[in-house]
């Protein structure tokens, strides 16, 4: 390769932001620069970096870019050890926060785990009232995947909230999970979801020393952040409505180094950095 050609190629790489298309090879994903992780806290909890809104909804949807993240460093001891879990998701939730269904990507700290799709939902039949599923559907840095939850008003097996990964009209998609009950039916007992239902989209950690996905150079983007004004009734896929709520009013980065940045209509970025 001539020197001038090489320089032009390198410039093109920089301009492309590390997503160069190699002739005949397809997209090449560059290793991401990990964000700075910090010492573990000796307590565990729920820590967030994202956005929630208060539209009455039957579901929630967001395109979320997969980004890398680091777990906190020990010592001091992380009480969850290799069971620590970092994730990014979209979620539909009742206003009292007692019922929810969410789907997204996440990874356990355990060295053999991969970043994969998961879903979690409330149900009285599972211990502690929550059910969790993990599937070996992996996602890699730079992937942009639609994660969506929708109340599907079908007669068989019954109306339920379904949790999906992927936009079936433009990319490979997976039906990940469905509530084993009808949350809108008062006969569902303790599993009945009182209205209103709201929408949330977030990165989540279990230790304040953990990173949320994303770094300064590779932010985790949430785009087409949307809610579902009406139940999903037909066999075609549901139509979500963008929140169109710029600037965002209900952001919730719980730590000062969990950064949040509006990114235009119905879009935002999150990442971890020493200074946001």
């Amino acid at each position, binding site marked *: 390769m001539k020197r001038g050609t090489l320089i032009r190629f390198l410039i093109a790489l920089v301009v492309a932001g590390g997503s160069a298309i190699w002739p005949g090879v397809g997209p090449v994903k560059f290793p991401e620069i990990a964000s700075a992780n910090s010492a573990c806290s000796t307590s565990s909890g729920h820590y967030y970096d994202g956005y929630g809104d208060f539209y009455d909804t039957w579901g929630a949807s967001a395109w979320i870019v997969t980004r890398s993240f680091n777990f906190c460093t020990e010592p001091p001891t992380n009480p969850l050890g290799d069971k620590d879990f970092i994730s990014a998701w979209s979620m539909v939730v009742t206003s009292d*926060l007692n019922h929810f269904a969410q789907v997204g990507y996440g990874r356990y700290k355990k060295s053999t785990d991969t970043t994969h799709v998961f879903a979690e939902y409330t149900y009285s*039949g599972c211990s502690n009232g929550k059910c969790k599923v993990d599937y070996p559907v992996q996602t890699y840095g730079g992937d942009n995947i639609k994660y969506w939850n929708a109340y599907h008003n079908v007669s068989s097996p019954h109306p339920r909230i379904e949790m999906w990964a992927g936009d079936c009209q433009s990319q*490979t998609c997976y039906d990940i999970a469905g509530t084993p009950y009808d949350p809108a039916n008062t006969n569902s007992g303790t599993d009945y979801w009182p209205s209103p239902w709201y929408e949330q989209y977030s990165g989540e950690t279990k230790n304040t020393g953990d990173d949320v996905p994303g770094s300064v150079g590779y932010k985790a983007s949430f785009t087409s952040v949307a809610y579902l004004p009406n139940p999903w009734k037909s066999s075609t896929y549901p139509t979500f409505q963008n929140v169109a709520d710029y600037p965002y009013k209900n952001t919730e980065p719980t730590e000062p180094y969990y950064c949040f940045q509006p990114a235009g209509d119905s879009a935002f970025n999150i990442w971890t950095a020493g200074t946001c």
Partner: protein
Amino acid sequence: MNRYLLLCGAIAVAIGGTLTLRLRYVTGPTTVRASGVSISRTVPSEYLTPLSAFNLRFTETQVAPGEHPVLPGGAAGITDEEAVTKAMAQSLGAVDGQLSPGVQVAARFGAFSDDVFAKGGPGAPMQLLYQNRPAWIVTFFGPGLTIPLDGPDPLAVHHEQNVVIDADTGDYLMGYS
């Protein structure tokens, strides 16, 4: 021996027998294998997650400890010990191929179906991926296993995790808890 001692002895035998029956009922037969792992065939009720919670179905077939199950085509499937070894790589109840302290394991073989998990895409109708798949459901359980959950504070955890392993290929199919 006086009547008092006889009575105490009878009570002790009764309690012991009841306890033994209770333990046998709860944990079922457990066999220690070459790997040093004790594999049960039953899961204690407090750790048993209903399959319906995940839209799963499972028809169990009894397989003797260490035996290869016979797959629908007649081939031999992987043993329970091999399935547990595969599952350990996925489970939070094991580290470096060893069960964590306070964690036990059970393995059940049978026909496994997931009535939700499906794959599709542009021009490709949704297709269920796991239907009547010969599989081992490997359940890790005990206080030494803690899976953190999402949702409102305080942080809740599960003390059981089910890892489904394809009995033909040894592939990891899913985890649920």
